[in-house]
């Protein structure tokens, strides 16, 4: 029941990301530099941090696949792999036991950094894009990290409340 609530909230966020974000982000940020909003990824990272890595992985794979199918462009699987991997990694971060705003935002930034490089790498490998990495980093990856960090900061309190309210049902054993 609780998980289905989270799924429906994430579905809402997914819809908002596709329809509203393009209008909210200034035109200048979409031409000279290219900022891509990753609201769903932010929530997946929060799930990875506040619940555990398995939920991060499953939510990431699910919503990534949904994104790939709905916005089918060059191929299917990029966002699925990226979201899943980053959601899992967020749950592996060592200092997630002392969760506060700083560590959370750090993990979010690292996650978006990893995700952006991952899809850049996949598209470069599959011959879809050919922009050099330094150019991509300055014009697109770095602005995206900053913008998404701001978004994460704005939604930090509500997301944290949500995560604490809709708790993961059982603790999966943590030690390896």
């Amino acid at each position, binding site marked *: 029941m609780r998980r289905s609530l989270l799924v429906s909230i994430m*579905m809402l966020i997914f*819809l*908002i*990301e*596709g*329809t*509203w*974000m*393009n*209008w909210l982000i200034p*035109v200048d940020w*979409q*031409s*000279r530099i*290219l900022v*891509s*909003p*990753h609201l769903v990824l932010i929530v997946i990272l929060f799930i990875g941090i506040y619940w555990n890595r398995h939920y991060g992985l499953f939510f990431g794979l699910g919503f990534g696949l*949904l*994104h790939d*199918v*709905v*916005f*089918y*462009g*060059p*191929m*299917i*699987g*990029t*966002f*699925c*792999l990226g979201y899943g991997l980053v959601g899992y990694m967020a749950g592996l971060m060592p200092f997630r036991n002392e969760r506060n705003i700083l560590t959370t935002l750090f993990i979010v930034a690292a996650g978006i950094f990893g995700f*952006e490089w991952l*899809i*850049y790498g*996949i*598209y470069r490998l*599959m*011959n*879809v*894009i*050919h*922009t050099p990495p330094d*150019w991509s980093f300055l014009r*697109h990856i770095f602005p*995206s990290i900053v913008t998404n960090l701001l978004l994460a900061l704005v939604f930090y309190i509500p997301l944290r409340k949500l995560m604490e309210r809709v708790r993961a049902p059982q603790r999966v054993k943590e030690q*390896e």
Partner: protein
Amino acid sequence: MYKLMGNKKLLVLMVSLIIFIALFGMTLSGSRENATPPERFVRDNVAWAQTLFNRPARFMADLVQDIRDIRTMYAENKALRLTLTQYSRDTMKLNELEAQNLRLKDLLGFTEKQKAANNYRYHPAEVIAYSSDPYSKVITVNVGARDGVKKDMAVISIDGLVGRVIDASDFTSNVQLLTAIDSVSATNSESDKESASTPTKGISATVKGKESDSFGVVSYDPETGMLIMSKISPSDPIAEGDTIITSGIGGVFPKGIVIGTVKSKEVDKLGLNYIAYVQPAADFIHLREVLIVEKPE
């Protein structure tokens, strides 16, 4: 002791990587015809929900636009009145020319098929959603295969060419913007067979008014933010300020859609041909209504 990865985990990771790479290869958009029914089903349903979200967004955007318009109203009105008189004059001329054209075609014995060749059908469509993927640049529009939209049809806005249909579901279709047509793979696409299956194909174009002498392939260069027209032969009369239109040679795109204006022209990397930088006519960022052009069979 903290161990990064056990054997089992490593195996799972490797297998899933292989699965993903196989998935990428199988679903490359250049190599397959149509999306599978489950994909279409998901896409249509999500698009329906997205239209619900679009309504308030549109309302707000309209409101802001209206307030902004109040200031420029007077000047715009004046300019529009001027164009309107010009327009009515042009319409008169057009009617006359069209009648003459028809008469001449009859005289020359054109077949019905040839006569219908320029009878394009336009499907007006609303833009539903934008992908947050910075590289694929896909938008979803609310007409689909049920309305006659097929893969590879041209998509235009009132300013000019916007992109092409990359896949059509029953009620919606995905449009790849012109800015996703990568210049490197597009310029190589004819020379080697392999990249013919890459998802980005260039668009054959020509110069308005010099249709018979001019030819080039248009693609997007992300580094300059402009379109590049490549494979222009040295004898080509293309010059700065010319309007670039689609040539219709590819067979899929109709003839005569405005792409942009030439900003500069230079020798290409190999020194044999020329390339021209083209300022796109359409705005790709805040698209709302587009037209999908259907060519008669």
